[in-house]
């Protein structure tokens, strides 16, 4: 009960001396605010990278067979780049043997892409867009949803019918104010009919995923994408469960090693890229960001601790008589010690609480005005509160022990 008593006392002090308390709490408040904001941004980016971006680039439980990795967030040195450059490309002829080697229930797709101009008679000049030639269950693997119109039929994919499915940005740019379904757009001088419009994929770091055009690989579009038309960029494989990943990868590896006539001991001259390999770099980057996110608030907290310690020393001096009275009435040393410790902790925790509120607000503002996503991590709030109380207790130890050691007679004599 002495505990609640002390908290009540501390809150009274804050209420009675608002301005002084404000400056007392400023350091802790700013420290915790930055902690929450930075952690929120790092968390938000992390969640985005892990669930969204990477998931969109490489689907869940899936891997991509490529001649070299296309997501290179890691540091790859020049000699490795040189070896990548000399690797043989993948050709459409590779697809059938690879697909036949896959375990039962596995999904597959192929894709080639490039940035090319697209035009329509409803808009001014041609616009650049990402053009992908696909085959197989591409949309299912990537979880792309057709919002209007329909997906490609198996016949269209097999025959190479000149039809396209477009992202919402394409509709906005090439068919402003119009229903795009059934209308024509042109790529490489040839007309393609829009049969579907995708749901928006949003954007990350200012990059839109909605400026895309998909066409059957077999359609004339594949000639536009690579110098040798039969080159494909990737075979995408998705297994039903994570446990089948290794098995499927191993089978694809053996097929490709045979096709590329690699002797045992020779390294692979193709890449099997998973979302994990793309995530590895992010995890490294995240560690630096979190360190920065700790260093910045730490300065605020240290300043806050020093301020609180000084304020508490002043409080002990000002309230010497009160301490004398309390001791005369039976307060033991621990009672006085804990009273001032709890008071310091309460002060600092209130500062931390305000800092949490401001930090959450700051994270929201940053998320709103910049492309950075921000998600408030519950653990950062817990850490914020704990830091607040911790800073208070640490900075309160010295003043509180001074208070508890006061001689009651001398304390009572003080004016």
């Amino acid at each position, binding site marked *: *009960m*002495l505990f609640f*008593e002390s908290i009540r006392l501390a809150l*009274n002090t804050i209420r*009675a001396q608002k301005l002084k308390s404000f400056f007392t709490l400023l350091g802790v408040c700013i420290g915790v605010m930055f902690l929450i904001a930075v952690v929120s941004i790092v968390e938000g980016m992390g969640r985005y990278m892990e669930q969204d971006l990477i998931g969109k680039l490489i689907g869940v439980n899936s891997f991509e067979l490529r001649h070299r990795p296309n997501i290179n967030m890691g540091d790859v040195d020049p000699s490795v780049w040189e070896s990548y450059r000399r690797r043989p490309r993948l050709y459409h002829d590779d697809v059938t043997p690879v697909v036949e080697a896959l375990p039962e229930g596995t999904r597959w797709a192929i894709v080639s892409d490039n940035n090319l101009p697209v035009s329509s008679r409803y808009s001014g000049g041609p616009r650049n867009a990402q053009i992908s030639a696909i085959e197989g269950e591409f949309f299912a693997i990537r979880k792309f949803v057709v919002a209007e119109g329909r997906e490609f039929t198996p016949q269209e994919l097999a025959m190479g019918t000149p039809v396209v499915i477009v992202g919402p940005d394409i509709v906005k740019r090439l068919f402003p104010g119009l229903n795009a379904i059934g209308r024509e757009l042109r790529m490489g001088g040839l007309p393609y009919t829009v049969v579907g419009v995708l749901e928006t994929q949003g954007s990350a770091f200012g990059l839109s995923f909605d400026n895309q055009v998909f066409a059957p690989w077999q359609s004339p579009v594949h000639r536009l994408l690579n110098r040798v038309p039969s080159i494909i960029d990737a075979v995408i494989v998705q297994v039903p469960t994570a446990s089948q990943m290794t098995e499927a990868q191993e089978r694809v590896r053996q097929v490709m090693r045979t096709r590329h006539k690699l002797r045992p001991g020779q390294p692979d001259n193709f890449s099997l890229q998973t979302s994990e390999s793309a995530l590895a770099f992010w995890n490294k980057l995240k560690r630096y960001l979190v360190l920065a996110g700790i260093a910045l608030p730490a300065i605020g907290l240290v300043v806050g601790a020093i301020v609180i310690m000084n304020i508490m020393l002043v409080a002990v001096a000002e309230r010497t*008589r*009160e301490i*004398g*009275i*309390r*001791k*005369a*009435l*039976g*307060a*033991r*040393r*621990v*009672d006085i010690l804990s009273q001032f410790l709890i008071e310091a902790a309460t002060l600092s925790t209130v500062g931390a609480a305000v800092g949490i509120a401001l930090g959450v607000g700051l994270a929201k503002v940053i998320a709103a005005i910049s492309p950075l996503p921000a998600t408030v991590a519950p653990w950062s709030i817990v850490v914020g509160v704990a830091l607040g109380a911790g800073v208070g207790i640490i900075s309160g130890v010295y003043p509180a022990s001074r208070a508890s050691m006061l001689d*009651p*007679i001398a304390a*009572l004599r003080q004016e």
Partner: protein
Amino acid sequence: MSQSTEAEVGTSTTAERQAVTSQPGVTPSRDWVIVTRGIKREYDMGGEIVRALRGVDIAIRRNEYVAIMGPSGSGKSTLMNLVGCLDTPTAGEYWLNGNLVSSMKDDELARIRNKEIGFVFQTFNLLPRATALHNVELPLVYAGMSAKQRRETAAYALERVQLTSRMHHKPNELSGGQRQRVAIARALVNSPSILLADEPTGNLDSATSQEIMKVFEELAEQGQTVIMVTHEADIAAHARRVVALHDGQVSSDTRRERFVRENEQVIAAKQ
């Protein structure tokens, strides 16, 4: 013998007091609230020794109402602090309720102050930011009482000093007399063995002083042991027994009647 003790509740004779103070090391019987045997208190002022108390023998029986009188600097406050367990003697024995206080440690002394002593100070010593009720609750907080029980007990103590209507006022909203009554309520709230007052009327006008003396008298009549320090003879004359201090030593220890007779002029001049 036992009959005479019965008849004289709240009093003690010189012979009885001498008997109990002259046996070092012997635990006094339970009816003695306070027994000091040759207590000394010396202050070391950078080499120069100040002898505030030079061997004081005092015995106070349960229910006595004693004034400790003496001029300024005679050692009254020093004695009060020792009796109130705020301080420990340099030499000598101090027994409170049969417990040897003079050898106790800090936390034990705090516990004794909380349970056995009720302080009333010249300057009231109320917490300025707390209400009357909360001030009175304070000793109960350190006694570990629950909030609800604390409130009830404190409210009752305020009722005893007729301050129920001022319960939620802060000290600066109260008159001097009312503040001192809050302090008395706070001193009584833990039902202490002794009420210890150091110049309780020192900051009050004479009318208010009389009012406070009336409260003390009532408490004494109800059986409360009261020890009051004062340098004013007319205030000391309210007690049933007066111990005079001079230069750190007891110079006389008499009943009220004799004290009043010997100080008639001084007391009359004041009234």
